[in-house]
């Protein structure tokens, strides 16, 4: 029983990170209809910027906002410099429709190479903001530590803030309107381009939060978030790719599921298992467990 609860706790902590990455993918998907594979690159660059702050000030809580703001700026820049042009050309020729996806792939490679050039390929370690020494009850220490609690709490707050923005503000309304009916949104005076850029900035900051939260429990390298990208994608698909709540729930389902596979089956099965989950969801319930019933051929 103790092992069972521990596994769920580990899963919630891991799933929170997946949920944040899924959120970043969903935000971009809703605004641009592109799965942004560069998200892992944007997040790693933001995290390295956070790393620079930490190595100079030794202060995680200063690095955190710096990374989040960098993430937002990088996201906005990517949209303005690259995606805006691609979206406008999306209807020219047979391959142009999938060109934005390939462009984000190129961007992922580009950012990784730049990060490698600046910081090299060595693994780097973050100072922990709070201890990773598991909570102790009497004589038993559980695998759930203050650092894991921090991840869960911050993820919850971020989700809450995004939910408030989307449901309670004009900006949120504009974001939703441009996502579903760009033409009508444009006619009703919403600056669709600007709104999309804001969507990319939000996504960039969500990815950066995922990066800077997960790195202290792991290590930092130019490709250390690649697997997170895949988990985030799977979580987003579980959640239906359209819904913010879906991203969060998808992350938790995947996180807990993987924790059980790791704990009870085998530690090297994590990614094959994630893939199986993905295929299963796509075959059985292609609209996601939470998503709308719309076709996937959008």
């Amino acid at each position, binding site marked *: 029983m103790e092992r069972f609860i521990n596994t769920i706790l580990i899963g919630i902590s891991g799933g929170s990170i997946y949920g944040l990455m899924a959120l970043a993918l969903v935000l971009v998907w809703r605004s641009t209809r592109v799965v942004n594979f560069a998200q892992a690159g944007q997040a790693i660059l933001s995290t390295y910027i956070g790393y620079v702050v930490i190595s100079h000030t030794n202060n995680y809580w200063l690095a955190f906002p710096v990374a989040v703001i960098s993430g937002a700026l990088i996201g906005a820049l990517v949209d303005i410099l690259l995606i805006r042009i691609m979206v406008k050309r999306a209807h020219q020729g047979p391959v142009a429709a999938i060109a934005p*996806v390939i462009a984000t792939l*190129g961007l992922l490679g580009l950012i990784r190479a730049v990060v490698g050039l600046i910081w090299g390929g060595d693994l780097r370690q973050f100072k922990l903001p709070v201890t990773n020494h598991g909570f102790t009850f009497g004589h038993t220490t559980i695998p759930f530590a203050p650092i894991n609690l921090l991840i869960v709490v911050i993820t919850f707050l971020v989700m809450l803030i995004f939910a408030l923005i989307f449901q309670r503000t004009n900006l949120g309304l504009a974001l939703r309107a441009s996502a579903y009916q760009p033409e009508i949104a444009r006619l009703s005076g919403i600056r669709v381009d600007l709104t999309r850029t804001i969507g990319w900035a939000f996504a960039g900051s969500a990815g950066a939060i995922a990066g800077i939260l997960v790195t202290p429990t792991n290590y930092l390298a130019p490709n250390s978030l690649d697997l997170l990208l895949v988990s985030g994608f799977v979580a987003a698909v579980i959640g239906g790719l359209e819904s913010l709540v879906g991203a969060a729930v998808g992350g938790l389902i995947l996180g807990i599921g993987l924790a059980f596979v790791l704990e009870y089956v085998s530690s090297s099965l994590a990614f094959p298992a994630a893939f199986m989950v993905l295929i299963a969801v796509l075959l059985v319930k292609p609209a996601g467990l939470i998503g709308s019933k719309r076709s996937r051929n959008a």
Partner: protein
Amino acid sequence: MLRKNGGRNQLRANLIFIAIGIVLFLVSNRVDELRVYQGATVAVYVVAISSIILLTGYSGQISLGHGALMAVGGYAAVLSRNDWHAPVWLSFVVAVLAAALFGAILGVAAGRLSGPYLAGTTLALAVGLPSLANQFSVLGGEQGLNYDVGQPPLSLGQDFTQYHWYFWIAGLAALVMTWLVHNVLGSRYGRNWRAARSNPTAAALAGIHIGRSKILAFTISAGIAGLAGALLAMTLSLVTPSAFPLALSFAIVTGAVLAGVTLLTGSIVGAVVLVAIPELTDALATHLGGSERVTANLPGLMMSALLIVSVLFFPNGPRLFRR
């Protein structure tokens, strides 16, 4: 009239293939061993890129996971050779069939998906599949399995090295496969794919079963990727999960896009560029007195930059190669 013209084109294409074969054969005997080895790598990429050209350029589907399909082919070839003592050519055939079968299963799932879903699913495949080899001891773990295509026949002379042998086998396989793909693309299926890609509604009205057509394209593309995997395993003399990293999947997409994804001849240009970029950047890095850091990252930087530039400005391939 049209038919006759087509026949002449076909003849011309066949002659070109034979001519390329002869030129390659002559060149391979006159260049340095390093170039021969790189030539073998080019041949592997030619096959891999043509699988993407068929899938993306003709059928309009995108895959970021062809490295995983290459892994299926590579492991199938190695297992058939090591466990059943299959001759080399047969192990290649097994590679094609195994990868095609895998592709067909995936295609059934993929046929219901498009754009982002397919891209993400194949990406997950590329990340997840090779690590499966660590799970089953028959696949040899991270250390991999040996793949021995044997020594070159003695009749080719003492100076005929293993690398020449690889080049000949890979070159011949690439030529044959390109010829086959060329013919498939020119057939009814190729036309159906293009029709379904350009205007699915019209194609469906014209009686083309869009889903089935996509699955067929994915299956054939996977089979070709399987051959590329077997050839790659041959040039390395082994298969390991690390032979099929995510970077490989990205590289072949890059090669396909760089060369203009809608034309088969582009596969050669793409393959040469993929092999030449590390070479060029290496020279550049040495010239700049670069550190390991520069040498390690410059190829990726250049390749990604080229990829972005080409999708930004020539999403359908450079005019030069476009039909």
